């Protein structure tokens, strides 16, 4: 297992270096950031001073070498927009995104797994109603849901704040909007997995042994049936931690998604690279954790 983890970590470093290089060249090929930073009536002197200070007057490859050298020494550059270390901005945005991700995933699991189990082991009216609701939930665009919730709960009834971050009330609507879609996906995956495993022979054997139905379901069936759910949760956490642009934008949530989009618009490439590096590392870590969780759930899985 240790060798597997080391291999994965080395692979992560390679991916991060590739991603950083790609982002650097792609974002710089779209134009010189200077012109987005200086006012439109800036004189030639002001423009030249700024380009010199930022090193943009050097050849692009030379800028790349400088950037990578600094990166290797832990300096991810200074934000062109905020004039602050880029990594600090990513670290500042991270708690907001982590909070939203955790609350949305908690909601999704709390709603999605029980509903998936119910519909997986029962067929009939309730199953059909839940399945219809799940299909509906997957079809509802989250920007529409968000705007409708703001209109009803904030503008009409003044129950919840329209956006921003600060209290538990600010968290409710973005959590529901994000969790709405994910919980429906978890419900579907749980349902299909549970119904598949519920028909298998080892479940019949467990029943034949005289075990209680709840024990059969929770200890035998779910342990196997949850594998695809774990994969889905892992992937969703990774995606959410990279920022959910629409939800963060609608609710003015100061997370990673908004930071990345604004930085791309401003060609603030040190921040974009810092964020991308973080996302690459985090995705790899989550994938690693997911693989370890597989081994924990299913002891037959070995990585050696």
């Amino acid at each position, binding site marked *: 297992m240790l060798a597997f983890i080391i291999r994965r970590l080395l692979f992560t470093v390679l991916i991060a270096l590739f991603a950083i290089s790609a982002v650097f060249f792609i974002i710089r090929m779209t134009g010189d950031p200077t012109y987005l930073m200086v006012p439109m009536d800036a004189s030639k002197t002001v423009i030249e001073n700024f380009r010199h200070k930022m090193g943009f007057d050097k050849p692009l490859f030379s800028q790349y070498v400088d950037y990578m050298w600094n990166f290797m020494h832990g300096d991810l550059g200074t934000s062109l927009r905020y004039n602050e270390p880029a990594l600090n901005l990513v670290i500042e*945005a991270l708690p907001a995104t982590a909070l939203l991700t955790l609350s949305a995933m908690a909601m999704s699991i709390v*709603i999605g797994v029980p509903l998936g189990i119910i519909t997986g082991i029962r067929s009939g009216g309730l199953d059909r109603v839940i399945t219809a609701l799940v299909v509906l939930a997957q079809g509802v665009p989250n920007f529409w849901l968000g705007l409708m919730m703001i209109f009803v709960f904030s503008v009409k009834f003044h129950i919840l704040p329209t956006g921003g971050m600060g209290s538990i009330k600010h968290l409710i609507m973005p959590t529901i909007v994000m969790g709405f879609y994910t919980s429906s996906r978890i419900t579907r995956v749980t349902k299909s997995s549970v119904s598949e495993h519920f028909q298998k022979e080892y479940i019949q054997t467990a029943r034949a042994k005289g075990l209680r139905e709840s024990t059969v379901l929770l200890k035998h069936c779910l342990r196997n049936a949850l594998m695809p759910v774990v994969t889905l949760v892992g992937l969703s956490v990774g995606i959410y931690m990279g920022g959910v642009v629409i939800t963060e*934008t609608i609710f003015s949530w100061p997370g990673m998604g*908004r930071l990345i989009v604004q930085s791309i618009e401003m060609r603030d490439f040190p921040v974009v690279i810092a964020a991308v590096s973080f996302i690459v590392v985090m995705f790899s870590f989550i994938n690693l954790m997911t693989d370890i969780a597989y081994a924990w759930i299913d002891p037959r899985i070995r990585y050696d």
Partner: protein
Amino acid sequence: MFSRIKTSWKLVGVMLSILVILPLSTGSAADRDTLTVGINADMRTPELITTMDQTSDKILLFHIYEPLIARNRQMVAEPWLAETLEPSGEVSWKLTLRKGIKFHNGAELTADDVKYTLEWILNPKNASMRLSRIELLEKIEKTGKYELNLITKKPFPVLPVSLGNISIIPKGMTPKELAKNPIGTGPYRFKEWKKERRIVLTRFDDYWGNAPYFKTLRFLIRPEMGARLSALLAGEVDMIPDVPVEMVPRVNANRETEIRTVPAGRSIGLYFNLRGDPDSVFHDIRMRKAFNYAVNVREITKHILGGFATPTGPLVPMNRHHYPEHSAYPYDPEKAVELIKRAGYKPEELHFTLHSPKGRYLKDFEASQAIGTQLGKIGIKVDVVADEWGHHLELMKKCNKELSIYINGRGERTFEGSMMQHWFKSGMPWTCFSDEEIDQAIDRAMPIVDPDKRERAMMLLEGLIWDKAPWVFLWAQNSIWGVKSDIDWSPWADEIPRLATASRK
């Protein structure tokens, strides 16, 4: 097992009940002593010495920091921290400061602070974006505790208004220190900045001028228009800038909110690229005039911009000097066709790509599409392309053949017409126009210090620009704010809100 499921449902029920019984207040625009503004972007840094962007100015200028000279409602320069600023020669000005003004750290404002601030900006090593404003300053001499002489490289008649964009900071403080602990002389002092969330300022009790009504100013960052508007309608904020035209009826329909607007110093034009395209048909003045006659500006300002824009003939309607005989070009498609034919072209053989920003200016892309349609009515084929703003800037910077005609907006920061050199002088950044006669007229008019002579020269210059039609004169857009009805405040033409003048009815 199903008993467990029932328990889960109970749990869900309890959670839903908690949602319902949450306190009804939603952090609405706080108490009467707090003014909350829903603003569309965060500031870059809490200092106004290095950077220069409109949002940071909106949040900080006249709140935390103050300039030597300020503009009044009519955009005429008036002394602010300065008591007087008068020319004492062709290239020298005598500046006297008001006495008894205190910084937020308790220190008194003296000539040392002014000298330090101006010299810091003038130092090229500091790469200050404010340098453009005072580039012609050569030397700052302290002549007394409150007096200075400002020596310029050449005559600099718009020095007073140019100083309106320079905030005075305490001697010895660096922008880095100011970014952590902003200190100015303004009516509010810095309290809190949660990046991308909010900025909070509190009243400065030792302020030298009239004490502001509101004890606290809160700026909530709401980049998305829908979110900003919802916050206003829900009563969470007292005012929001840049309300889109189509949302105006919704704001006015709400009992507690209304629209307040003012013509702003930002002119939108349809530009021709002459510099980068030697074969452009627009080197012929008749073609440029033809386009001016072919675009029905009044129809666009009325129906697309909802009346929140003024057709331009004068470059900036709020400017002090205008060539009196020139108003907007009339809509005359027949004359346009005739001019095109006289220039040796057939309208149906002309084909252009119109580059337009999208969302940068009031209904910019929709208006560009209307312009394309109007030009199409006389047979000219126009493809309208929406550019991402960074790409649009890049095209304007390069001025190469890829760019033929394009929409752009330029802000007038002096309201004295001095921006004409940035807009039309050959070789200026973002200027794809070039005309020797205009260049000479600009060089003649800009250095004149005598007010009467300057006014005459500026009017002649504006007249020449009108006649040469370097762009299709379109409109000057309004600044549109959504404001709660109980707030006594109206917007300013330079788009700096000056919220110390606001109060609650």
